């Protein structure tokens, strides 16, 4: 088994190596990140000033929809799966993933799903234009013909995610090195274990909801059509039953990454390891009983509103515990601020701000004013961009030397951080104000009173986009010509991945390490 990778394209097509597959996931997600980013820039360019300048309203709606779908399912989720593929076997001392051939499958069906999704842009009637939440009946009776391709694409993405999740759980539960007890696992492994369970629980629900759409559109059922005894509100309940756990799927692994990075650069063990595990589990549990907070204005009995309001507010408790633990980890450490640490610290600060607006949104009466405005857009971008994107970026800087054996250029990394940090805040902070002033989301044109905030947002968006081009350059130049990295890379980092050489050999831990 000690042979290296195969040569040529077949290495990538047939590979069952977790590192190869991890790399493919990461590059795929990077590509999708740029594609989704281009869609976002089309949106921001149109919204730069009042009036319709660049695109038609219908195409604008296609852009918002595709931006959301590509970023959620194409950029963030595959990036986390890629990190899991690369890191989990090395972190638990396993030679590979538990189901290597399924691993190959779950990656290779993804490009087809997204090719299908993106091709809808060129179809008659255009791409899906009903928002990434695709509420019925806009997405059924009133949808463009391409909706069928969208449904199949979602099915394939779902299948890929479920296979990935099964693989990850099987690896974590069955492949740990001797002595690696559950409560000794790095938090990234823990958060991914919980995330994988969430995926298995809710991706089939997403598949279910799009199947119901498919049947309503083509086979004459009436799940969501009031005319035949169905109910469009049922769609929202089922969708958000998937959707709320989904947003935690996009943040829990980020918690794990930050919990790995902060201790390294604070030179102090993570504070409250076991409370972190319990907090993650309780967030995952709560995610199943809060879905209707996305639907406060839909008209629910007051008892329902109160239940979902209280349950949602409760999420602040375990989330708060996590933030306090990170701050306590930093407290009285000996900190340095290399690029991964900068992104991790920005994560803690900005994610907390996103959490605050989340808490405000949880208050049902106030949500009647916030709902479907830019305040909501600001909120979820504050948790997703600094949350998911910054943590993934931090992870890339943190582990890239281990992956390719070369050190990135610290000055350029820091420049990337500051450009991204300023760009992000410039883009999304003004959205709070635009939303509170009364700007609804998903509109291609707006009244002049929102003009200043939108202009700032658009300028920030282009800055943020530019920063990511720099990121691409840094990653490529590090791989091609970075300085040689040591095995430890950082100063006394914790974890099995640092005990193997840099770059990590094609096969690691063929004989399991002894964990004390």
């Amino acid at each position, binding site marked *: 088994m000690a042979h290296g990778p195969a040569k040529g394209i077949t290495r990538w097509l047939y590979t069952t190596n977790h590192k190869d597959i991890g790399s493919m996931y990461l590059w795929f997600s990077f590509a999708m990140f740029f594609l989704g980013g281009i869609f976002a820039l089309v949106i921001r360019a149109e919204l730069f000033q009042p009036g319709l300048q660049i695109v038609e309203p219908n195409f604008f709606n296609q852009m918002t929809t595709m931006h959301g779908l590509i970023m959620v399912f194409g950029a963030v989720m595959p990036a986390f799966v890629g990190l899991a593929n690369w890191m989990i076997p090395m972190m638990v001392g396993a030679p590979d993933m538990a189901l290597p051939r399924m691993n190959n499958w779950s990656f290779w069906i993804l490009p087809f799903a997204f090719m299908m999704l993106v091709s809808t842009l060129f179809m008659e009637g255009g791409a899906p234009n009903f928002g990434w939440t695709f509420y019925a009946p806009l997405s059924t009776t009133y949808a463009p013909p391409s909706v069928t391709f969208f449904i199949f694409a979602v099915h394939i993405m779902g299948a890929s995610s479920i296979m990935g999740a099964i693989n990850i759980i099987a690896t974590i539960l069955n492949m740990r090195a001797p002595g690696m007890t559950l409560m000794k696992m790095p938090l990234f492994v823990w958060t991914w274990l919980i995330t994988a369970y969430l995926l298995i629980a809710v991706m089939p629900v997403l598949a279910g909801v799009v199947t119901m759409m498919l049947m309503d559109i083509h086979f004459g059922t009436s799940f969501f059509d009031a005319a035949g005894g169905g109910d469009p509100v049922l769609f929202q309940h089922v969708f958000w039953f998937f959707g709320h756990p989904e947003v935690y799927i996009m943040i829990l692994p980020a918690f794990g990454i930050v919990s790995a990075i902060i201790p390294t650069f604070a030179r102090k063990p993570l504070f409250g390891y076991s409370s972190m595990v319990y907090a993650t589990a309780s967030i995952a549990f709560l995610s199943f009983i809060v879905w209707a907070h996305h639907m406060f204005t839909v008209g629910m009995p007051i008892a329902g509103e109160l239940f979902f309001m209280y349950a949602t507010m409760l999420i602040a408790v375990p989330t708060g515990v996590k933030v306090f633990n990170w701050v306590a980890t930093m407290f009285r450490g000996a900190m340095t601020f290399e690029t991964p640490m900068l992104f991790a610290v920005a994560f803690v600060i900005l994610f907390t701000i996103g959490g605050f607006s989340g808490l405000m949104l949880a208050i049902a009466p*106030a949500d009647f004013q916030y709902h479907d405005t830019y305040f909501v857009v600001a909120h979820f971008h504050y948790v997703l961009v600094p949350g998911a994107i910054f943590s993934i970026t931090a992870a890339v800087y943190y582990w890239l030397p281990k992956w390719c054996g070369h050190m990135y250029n610290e000055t350029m990394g820091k420049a990337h951080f500051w450009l991204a940090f300023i760009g992000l805040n410039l883009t999304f902070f003004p959205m709070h104000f635009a939303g509170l002033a009364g700007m*609804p989301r998903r509109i291609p044109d707006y009244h002049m009173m929102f003009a200043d905030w939108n202009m700032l947002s658009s300028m920030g968006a282009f800055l943020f986009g530019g920063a990511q081009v720099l990121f691409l350059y840094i990653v490529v130049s590090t791989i091609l010509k970075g300085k040689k990295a040591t095995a430890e890379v950082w100063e006394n980092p914790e974890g099995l991945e640092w005990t193997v050489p840099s770059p990590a050999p094609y096969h690691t831990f063929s004989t399991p390490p002894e964990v004390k």
Partner: protein
Amino acid sequence: MFKRAHRLFAWLLAPAVLMTSYQTLAEKAESLKFNMTEGVTPVSREIQGLHMEMFWWCVAIGVVVFSIMFYSMIMHRKSRGVKPANFHESTGLEILWTAIPLVILVVMAIPATSSLITLYDSEEADMSVLITGYQWRWKYDYVDSDVSFFSNLSTPRDEIDGYAPKNPNYLLEVDEPLVVPVGQKIRFLVTAADVIHSWWVPDLGVKRDAIPGFINDSWAVIEEPGIYRGQCAELCGKDHGFMPIVVEAKPEAEYNAWLEEKRAQAQELAKLTEKTFSFDELYERGEKVYGQWCAACHQANGEGVAGTFPSLKEGIAVGPIDEHIDVVVNGVPGTAMQAFGEQLSEVDIAAVVTYERNAWGNNMGDEAQPIDIYNHKQGN
């Protein structure tokens, strides 16, 4: 997909123009809207109070957490020569920072609960308005007084496309506002006739989803006369951004006078059905109707959008007039073409049919009279 190139150019120049035309900063700050409106109803004020309370709680928690964090980031740097401590557990602390947020949450939940109960109490209203969302307009139906009308965006297309300067109520103006009395408890019954919409007026503190087949309710007591503007808040298709809401609150006497006038107008319109119009009258009226009701899909030039909305320069508008009337009155099932028979008066349908048959080089030369439409609707 991309519009004309010269507009792209104008767009590229825009920042420079806007930067130089800015007022002084102080004036700017004055006019800048950045917070939730207090509004003009008891509910909207309560919501705004709640919002501010939540905001200050968040600021307070943020100040504490971020102070500790920044203190630590400044004082506990390796470059200052500090030695890292090694503590990594404290059950006491964990309990403390679980308990304190819980207490704060309870403190937050109490006023939120009471506000929600007020918000839900739509009993004993003085009047009811049925609000129906359409792609892409609102219909208001005064349930107790037999008055009903549609409310369309009235911003001219040229302002949207940048050929004319934007007026102060750009995109927030309609041809017929919802007129209501001040000081009365108004119940809004909200529903939709196609996809889901959401009726939102920030100053009233009212946002309710309009769901096809189902009815929702909300309420408001408007305390000050005035004009309050809002927008559709739920993505409802292409022109989601172009279906504003305008509510005009009037003192009771003025409101009653308006209601009377509205009834008289309806009777007037019924009379118009029997009148015979000249071709020019019809064409002129039809041009206006077309702009408000048809141009969103079939475009101002009648050419439609390939693949989605058919061109009127061929097909139905240059075919037999009976079929043309039938399509406008009864719609085309299974497509975006609505049945306008219930939405437009006989006069307006006759006018728009006449216009479509004779505009953009369609030289059919014939016309439809209101009575033809009436007869068509009666099945004759």
